[in-house]
Every structure is written in structure tokens, then in C-alpha cells.
């Protein structure tokens, strides 16, 4: 039985699975149900001046009949009075003292506003604070959420203000709606953040109805951009976590968020540098009980690998993530088709023929049976055939010797520089 406890910048929780600040953490009732179900922590739905929400607010993107491949919302922060939320936080914390409750906060970019709310929530016993600099809709139009989060100076300044008053750890939640997330992450660190969390939702329009021509979702025939999340955003979130994790100037723990639907996703985020993860869409899709499999799956994974606790995986893949210029140009793989396993759907052939390097031939054997073969000398090892292949084990990507010593682009350029220099000398 592996130890699943985490300590994220001083915030302790019995497992790394937190519910992200969102509709599932809107009330004491929900959070208590979540803790009963096994969640290790919650980030309470963003507190601030209660707002008025619209109807409807959610939309799902489906793919090939798969519901909720992506998810989109135009809901805002809490619509309940601060006093009610604080009372419920207090009661919940009393009932579940060992679970983490983090208050998500959003106020106007004013020092006194931050001081005021930080003091109020810490008074009811939260374990930490998460500054919401990410919400892309509604609040942003009032200068809050991602409107603040897109301006590094504002991130730094507001983090600083929050830290001035805070006694508990401060996590800064970042928006992905920005060119380079490390810039705002660094700003948060300069402001004194104890940790960062990412990503908040991505600006999105879930769809357009082909019959009514309304946006999806729409509010009485009008739509606005919402925040995108769910399985579809995972690669984007993972990249942002990785970029921050490998940046030496961002030396604070990361809480990973974005499309995490199961324990495997969580392990990926943790390998790539997240100390813990936050989950929302998967819980909205299936209910709180999904955490059972997350905990069990993670535990079994660690046990099978003989890893006693999560420190054995956190950040272990960060050093493998680098820049294109550091990749070995002489590393070579080629596709090899296992004719025993191949079912002859020919998807690899047509993918290669139409859109890659035309190196998979459709042939017939002596008995007239069709089979496929890769001309390895022409294969660039792009992976497309193995990606489109519907059968496990039918196409292997096999490493082949290139006959050259490893060399990266950066090495090549500096070597060329050395070679070219004498030339210049000769010219003199």
C-alpha cells in the first residue's frame, strides 16, 4: 500500500486528488459529499462579490459519439453570499480536519480588497488560498480573472498583496489564454507565490447549432465565449505544466489541472512536475465516485512499480522534456507491420500514401492473399501509420541504427560555427 499523501507548499492532503474550483465545489453539502467519496482536497468555488449567472451555461463537445470529449462553460464565480460560503467552509473543515480546503479568491485588483478577503477566509480555517487569475469570461470583462492573469505586472502585484495578508500558502492559478505561460508563472513567483496551479479554462466556442444557427450554449439566442476544459485540453495543460516545471526560475510546486480524467492522466501530470492534481470535468461527467478508481489505480501503479510514495514519481519526466534543438537528429525509427496481427484495413497504406511518405505497399503473396509491407529505406518514422492502425501490435515502430553518432541541431549549429570560423579567418 503506497503512501498517497502529498504536501503541496505546506498544504497537506491524504491523496493528490483535489476537486478544482468549479461547480462541484460550490457548497458545503457538495464538498462534504466529495470528502466522503474520498477526494483528498477541494478548491472551494471562487469567492468574491456574488454574481448573477445566466441560463444556460454549459456545453459539451462530442466526438464520434463520445460525449464530453471537451466541455465549455460560461458560469462565473460563486453566486452565493460570502458569509454563507465562509460558514460552510468552517463547518466542513471542522468535520474533515485532515482534508485540504483551499479557498479560491477573486477580487478587483486593489490591495485593500485582497487584504480584506484573505483575512476573512483564513479566519474560518482554510488550508490555503488560490488566486483565480484565470477565469476567461464575464469576470474578465470587469478587469478580474484572466484580464488580470494576462498581465504579468498585475499577477505579480496582486500575488504580493495577497501574500502581505496571508498566513496560509498562496497558490496562483494561471490562465492558458496567453502566449507564454512561464512569463505569468514567473511573475507569480516574483510576487511571492508559494505554488502555481494550471491551467484554467481556454477561451472557446463549443459549437453552432446547424438548425437554429445559435451558438452552443446560447442565452436566449445570444452567445459568448466560454472556458474550455475536459479531456480535449489535457495536452495543452500538460505542456504548460512541463514548461513551468523545467523553468529554473519557477521553483515552486505545481498543482496540475486540465483534462485529468483518471489516475493515468494524474500520473502523467505528476511525472511532468505536478505535486498534485485538480479535477473537475470528469467529476461533472460521472460524479464524485470516480475518485475511487483514481486512488486505487494510482496506488496499484505505485505498488507495481515498487515506489513507496509520490515523491518517487513527481517530476521524474521533467528532464526528458526539452527544446527541439536538443533532439538527436540521427535517431531513427521505422514502421514494421506484423502481417500476423494486421487485419488488412489498409488505413496505414492510405494514410502514408495520401498524407505522408508513400512507403507502405499493398502486395499479394503467392496464394493471392493481400498483405502490407513498409519500404523501410523510405520510411521517415513519422508514426502516422501506427497512429491510424486500429489493432494493437500490428505496427511496431522499431529503432534502427542510423550509422551516425547522435547529434542535436544545437550541436550541429555550434559545430558548423567552429567549422566556419577558420574560413572567415582565411578570408581576412
Amino acid at each position, binding site marked *: 500500500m503506497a503512501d498517497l499523501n502529498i504536501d503541496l507548499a505546506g498544504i497537506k492532503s491524504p491523496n493528490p486528488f483535489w476537486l478544482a474550483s468549479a461547480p462541484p465545489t460550490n457548497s458545503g453539502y457538495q464538498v462534504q459529499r466529495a470528502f466522503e467519496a474520498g477526494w483528498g482536497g477541494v478548491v472551494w468555488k471562487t469567492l468574491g462579490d456574488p454574481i448573477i449567472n445566466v441560463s444556460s451555461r454549459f456545453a459539451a463537445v462530442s466526438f464520434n*459519439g463520445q460525449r464530453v470529449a471537451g466541455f465549455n462553460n460560461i458560469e462565473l464565480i460563486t453566486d452565493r453570499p460570502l458569509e454563507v460560503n465562509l460558514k460552510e467552509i468552517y463547518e466542513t473543515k471542522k468535520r474533515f480536519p485532515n482534508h485540504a480546503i483551499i479557498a479560491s479568491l477573486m477580487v478587483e485588483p486593489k490591495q485593500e480588497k485582497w487584504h480584506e478577503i484573505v483575512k476573512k477566509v483564513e479566519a474560518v480555517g482554510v488550508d490555503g488560498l488560490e488566486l483565480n487569475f484565470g477565469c476567461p469570461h464575464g469576470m474578465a470583462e470587469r478587469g478580474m480573472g484572466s484580464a488580470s492573469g494576462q498581465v504579468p505586472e498585475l499577477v505579480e502585484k496582486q500575488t504580493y498583496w495577497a501574500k502581505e495578508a496571508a498566513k496560509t500558502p498562496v497558490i496562483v492559478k494561471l490562465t492558458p489564454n496567453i502566449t507564454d505561460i512561464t512569463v505569468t508563472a514567473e511573475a507569480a513567483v516574483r510576487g511571492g507565490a508559494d505554488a502555481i496551479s494550471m491551467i484554467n479554462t481556454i477561451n472557446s466556442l463549443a459549437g453552432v447549432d446547424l438548425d437554429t444557427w445559435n451558438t452552443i450554449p446560447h442565452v436566449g439566442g445570444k452567445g459568448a465565449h466560454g472556458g474550455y476544459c475536459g479531456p480535449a485540453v489535457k495536452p495543452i495543460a500538460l505542456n504548460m505544466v512541463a514548461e513551468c516545471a523545467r523553468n529554473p526560475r519557477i521553483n515552486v510546486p505545481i498543482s496540475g489541472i486540465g483534462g485529468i480524467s483518471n489516475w493515468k492522466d494524474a500520473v502523467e501530470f505528476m511525472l511532468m512536475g505536478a505535486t498534485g492534481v485538480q479535477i473537475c470535468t470528469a467529476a461533472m461527467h460521472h460524479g464524485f465516485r470516480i475518485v475511487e478508481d483514481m486512488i486505487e489505480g494510482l496506488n496499484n501503479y505505485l505498488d507495481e512499480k515498487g515506489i513507496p510514495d509520490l515523491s518517487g514519481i513527481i517530476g521524474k519526466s521533467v528532464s526528458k522534456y526539452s527544446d527541439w534543438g536538443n533532439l538527436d537528429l540521427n535517431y531513427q525509427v521505422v514502421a514494421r507491420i506484423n502481417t500476423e496481427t494486421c487485419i488488412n*484495413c489498409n*488505413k496505414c*497504406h*492510405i494514410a502514408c500514401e495520401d498524407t505522408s511518405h508513400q512507403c507502405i505497399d499493398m502486395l499479394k503473396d503467392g496464394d493471392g492473399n493481400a498483405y502490407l509491407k513498409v519500404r523501410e529505406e523510405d520510411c521517415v518514422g513519422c508514426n502516422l501509420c501506427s497512429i491510424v492502425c486500429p489493432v494493437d501490435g500490428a505496427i511496431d515502430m522499431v529503432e534502427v541504427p542510423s550509422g551516425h553518432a547522435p547529434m542535436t541541431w544545437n550541436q550541429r549549429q555550434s559545430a558548423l560555427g567552429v567549422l566556419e570560423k577558420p574560413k572567415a579567418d582565411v578570408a581576412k
Partner: protein
Amino acid sequence: MTAVETKRISLKDISLNFEEVEKGLTNREALEESSRCLYCYDAPCIKACPTGIDIPGFIKRIASGNLFGSAKTIMSSNPVGASCSRVCPTEELCEGACVLNHSTKPIMIGNLQRYATDWAIENNRLLFNKTVSNGKKAAVVGSGPAGLSAARELALCGYDVTIYEAAAHAGGLNTYGIVSFRLPQRISFWEVNQVKSLGVEIKTNTKVGADISAAELLSKYDAVVLAAGMASVPNLGIEGEDLEGVYDAIEFVKNTKTKPLTDEFKGKKVAVIGAGNTAIDGATCSVRLGASNVKILYRRTIDEMTAYDFEYEFAKQDGVEFRWLTAPKRIIGKDGKVSGIECVQMELGPEGEDGRKRPVPIEGSEFILEVDAVIKAIGQKRHKGLIEEFGLEEVGGVVVVNSETYQTSNEKVFSCGDIIFGKGFGEAMVVTAAQQGKLAAHAIHRELSKKTASI
């Protein structure tokens, strides 16, 4: 209605028993199933379909919600594609060839085809537009799958097409010969209307050889397609065949599709002679008309039976009994009505000319079964008279054709469908008939275009 309910035979309301047994896919099911299709390149399912429907293409169109395009893809390759989605032995054809047989489960191609064509039927869509006339005329004798298919293709090529149909309605086998609970008449009628909408004239109740002569057709039209199918079931050649209660299986099925359903079979015992698909139809119709016991008597064994496996399974589900190696010797009557059938037990002897083991009676093994009705389903007769009327070369009642062009000994006459179906040539399937009709039409067009070009 749930699947369990549909399986139960109602004795109160027989008409319920003749409603389509298999329910169509729901929208959700169709979406999920169509999303499962791999969209193979050079797909084996296409090759396994006698009409070469672009199956991955029509399935992809279902997945994307392009149902008009899907139905059109199906029907352009197969003018009776809606019927075929219900009656094709898909596990032997498209679904049998599906590459997913090797990894998971084959795609339900038949059901998806039905889903797309049902959409077109329910939404009353015309899938094809009338073409500009090319000034040539073609006659088609018979409006079954082969004739309809030929007429449709000819019409699309610009021919003025007239179909001559002896029956009251067009559609042939699909209209009259396939049990309603598998293929309701409205499906066949929709396919007929798709062809009609291209300007094809269908003269029903018009028998070639009686109402119009072959010579007249040959003189009035540039080409003739002979697609008259098969005739009635031959006699058993035993005593008692003219008793009341002896039926021709073809007629028997036809009656369930064209006349008010009779309740005279309720509680009766029925013997069906033969074990082909028509025999199964006769047997299952009897069950659904309320018969208390239905036996199929076959003089060979299950291994020689020509009925499809799924038909056999279906009959067993309906409670039909199978008596192998059993041949009828005479039908026994009482007051002019069937009261029993005397059978003899058979055993398989050496192989006959057709390569099948010949059944031989076991002497002294005669026994009598008490029955109230006997349904004959031992094959079908040929339209010999019609073939003679056209003066075509034939072998054993089967018109001789060029296997690629379907041209007969008369260069103006092309023939397709069951009328050219013989041992060792083609298969007696709706889908092959449709393909032959298409190919015959294309051959005519090639031939006549050549002639025009040479003038």
C-alpha cells in the same frame, strides 16, 4: 415494443405477428455503430457485396449525419438496397468480410444500410433525378429486383423505359415473395417509386405472351431485358396433391402479403415439404398464422439444406420442427381435405450428378403424420413459355447468356435475375439479381452507344 415481446406469437391479433421482427437501429445505436467503422481503404466489404456498394462511404456518411448522402450512396450501387438491407445474408457477404471479424466484432452493415434507407423512406426522399432522354427505348419484362435494377440504370442513362409486369403490383419477389415480418411491402413499393420517378413506365397486369407479344416488344424497342424471375412451385408428383389444404409456398406467402390474414390456420398442424428459404418462409408464416405445430420435412440432412443459417435459426426460434431424411409419399385426405401425410424415412446414398449424396428410401419405414395442411416448397418452375416466346437458347429451362454482358442468343435481348439462375451460375439472391440488372443495362448502353457512334 421490446425484443422479447416481438418474439411472442400472438393468437389474438395475428397481424402483430407479421410486423417486422427486427427493429431498426435507434439514432444513438446508429451513431455508435457507424463510428466504430474503420473506414477501411480498398475495403473487403465492398468487394464482398455483389453490387459493390461503397460501404465505408455510406457508413461514414451516417456517422457525420449526412443521411441523404448515405442513402444515395447505397441506392446508386443497388437500386433495391433498402430490401437488401433486410434480406441479404450479410454474414456471408459484407459483414463476413469485415476486417473487424479478426479483432472485435464485425460492423452491423446490414442494419446501418437499413437505417440510412429507412431515413430516406420515412422522409419521402427521391434520391435520383430524371435524366435527359437519349431517344432510345428499352423494355423490361418483369419488375423484380433484376428488372427494376436494369430499368433504373437504363433510365439514368437516358432511355425511355417501359416495364411489363404480369402481377398487379411491381416489385416481384420483394413485393410478393418475402415474408412481411422480414420485408414489409412498403419498402419494396418505395424502391419501385424511386424507379418510377425517373420516368420509367410500369405496365402492371400485363403479361408478355398474352397481353403483348414478344415480337411486338422486339419491334417496338431498341433493347429488351428479360427479367421474369421464376414461376410457381412444381408438383410433388404424389397422390393427394389436389386436396384442399395443399398449398404452393410461393402463393401461400403471397397471400399473407396481399390478402387479409386468414385465421383458418389457428391450432392447425402443418407440414412443409423442402428446406430452402421459401420452405422456412412457409413454415414461419404458418406459425404466425396461429398453427399449433409446424414441421419441415426434408429428404436430405441439415448439411444439404439450402436455407441460410439465420433463416434456420429463426425458424427454430419460432418453434418449427425439422424432420431430416423424411420424404412425403402421399397426402391423405378426408372429405376432400388434407388429414395426414404418409412419409418414408430416407438414407443418404452415393453422390449423384450434382455432387450431392442422393437420398434413398428405407424400405418399410413408412409412417403417417396427422396434418391439416401441406405446403410445397421444393423449388420453383421456370417461365419456359416466355423463353420460347422470345425464341431464346436455353438449357434446362434456363436462358443462356453471355456471363459478362447478359446478352442472350437474340442480340436485342438481355436477361438477368432468377430466370437465368441455374445450377453453378450465380446465386439466387436479391442482391445478385440487382447486380445482374445493372450489368445488363450497362451492356445494353455500351452496345447501343457503339451502334449510334458507328452511324
